[in-house]
């Protein structure tokens, strides 16, 4: 729990436009099971984060759209395998994760 608190503090400290430290984002991706299906540079069950970043490059609305998808789940964009909903993940964490992914998930 301490670790998650630290992440929250790190997030709170970060201004909206400033990315979360990569190590914190990776920790979150693990904590919320994202890495069960996703990796940065290769397709697992779900698409690679770098492919997601490439697809939405320059799309100003992407962050909001993806946050919605993470929260409510979806399917069809990357094939038939659905993304399960993640209603239990706090919005601030989703936003941090989406920003990290759109920045290339490095």
């Amino acid at each position, binding site marked *: 729990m301490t*670790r998650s608190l630290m992440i929250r503090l790190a997030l709170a400290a970060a201004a909206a436009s400033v990315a979360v430290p990569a190590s914190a984002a990776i920790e979150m991706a*693990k904590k919320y*099971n994202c890495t*069960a299906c996703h*990796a940065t540079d290769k397709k*697992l*069950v779900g698409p690679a984060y770098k492919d997601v970043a490439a697809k939405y490059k320059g799309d100003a609305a992407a962050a909001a759209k993806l946050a919605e998808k993470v929260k409510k*789940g979806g399917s069809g964009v990357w094939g038939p395998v659905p993304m399960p*909903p993640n209603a239990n993940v706090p919005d601030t964490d989703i936003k941090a994760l989406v920003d990290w992914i759109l920045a290339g998930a490095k």
Partner: protein
Amino acid sequence: MRRIARISPVAWMVAATLAAVTGTASGQPKIAPEEVRLQAGSSPVGQEEMVQKIDPRSPPMTKAEFDKARQIYFERCAGCHGVLRKGATGKPLTPDITLQRGTEILKTFIKYGSPAGMPNWGTSGELSDNDVDLMARYVQQEPPTPPEYSLEDMKKTWKVIVPPEQRPKKKMNKLDLDNLFSVTLRDTGEIALIDGASKKIVNIVKTGYAVHISRVSASGRYLYVIGRDAKINLIDLWMEKPDNVAEIRVGLEARSVETSKDRKYADKFAIAGSYWPPQYVVMKGDTLEPLKIQATRGMTVDTQEFHPEPRVASIVAMHDKPQFIVNVKETGKILLVDYTDLKNLKTTEIGAARFLHDGGWDASKRYFLVAANESNKVAVVDSRESKLTALVDVGRIPHPGRGANFKDPKYGPVWATGHLGDESIALIGTDPKGHPKSAWKVVRSLKAQGGGNLFIKTHPKSTNLWVDTPLNPDAKIAQSVAVFDIKNLDKPFEVLPIADWAQVGEGAKRITQPEYNKAGDEVWFSVWSAKNQESAIVVVDDRTRKLKAVIKDPKLITPTGKFNVYNTQHDVY
């Protein structure tokens, strides 16, 4: 803990520590579909009543749902993920991990599969959406524990059909026993004894289900077979019509049986290793009376963590020492069990590598080579010195059967294995005295038809190396064999369309397990189709590589493993 009568009310409180599980899917080696096909067969353990712990955090299930899911689990999942779900070929699925994942993520994996090797049970049509949901909830429950199997349990199943004193004093038939074949009829729970010269069925003997191997006692008189359901049959080949003289069940699921081969102990003892419970048992050789059971539960060789389910894979007897070599899969340990004094049992434990599977002797019978198949290694044990000689890196998921020994024109004596996960054949030098530079190294890697290989075979009198590929997804490859010329290993292999030669009807017609006759001049192949379809055995002339005979019979249902008595008795391969 209690028997599963009702699931819901009485909760077995488990310390609700929220373990931070951070296992990732990335960086895991991919499991070949061929390997999944090998492991994902049904486990007979699922038919037993089990002890079930309740975890209050698990999603609710009714008793009926739980029982259905448990049945599906043991039919489709246990082979890879283990009875206790500690993982082997598949990932661990204990609740500390699965609860963290949650139902929705688990459903996605079960329905769609994963690139790491999990089959797509939903989209392949094998499980309905309801079943997928059921299984996702089931794997978040504590794994039910199957019962143990004690000496008393074994004795309850033990039958001496013909006591030793009532058996023939000499061979009562005119069979050429040396050239008799014991052929597994996988799905009927039988073996066929086939005469090597006439190719006629001598007898069909009732056995356990899907006999995994046949072994022949040191004298050549007794044949031991073990089914996947851990039932052992002892067949006396001296009877007028060779048949069962004793039987026993040594557990709930098993793969291996062997007999004492040391001259002073000829026919004295038998040993069997089981998958569940994880243990081996030494029995009297002529009656199968169980004498001594040893558990294999213990620490893994690398991380030294306790493993509750280390299955006994293969067992091989030394010919010049009163010892059995017992290979334990999940802990990666090779046990040299001295059977001279069962009361004061001496065992040498050799740490090798995880997921030991099958193996065989080198030509000198001093060194035993065994595949550690998920580690992609072959372990070499020096039976004279009782120690590990080498761990050799080979291809993806080696599956040698007993392997093949021959002389490489350039590198001298080698032992070879094929692989489930790739098309390569690894030739390992086995002559440290004559060819020290080649010893315990892959001196040559041949490329055969493809992955999905189970057995490769040659014979001291042959210059052919036969390679089957029954688990290859391409039907054309699964229905044919590749043959290399040992004298000219750079030459491309020849492909023989064995399934076409058999001229049987529709079916998978997978070609498996080349086996030589005693003379080493013919090779027998199983043409393996489903239970309701025609199968056959195709006999090929070893010198000309031409069809010699096709053995067909309505009783020859799902033939798989074939064991020539002489070659099995003397470990000729």
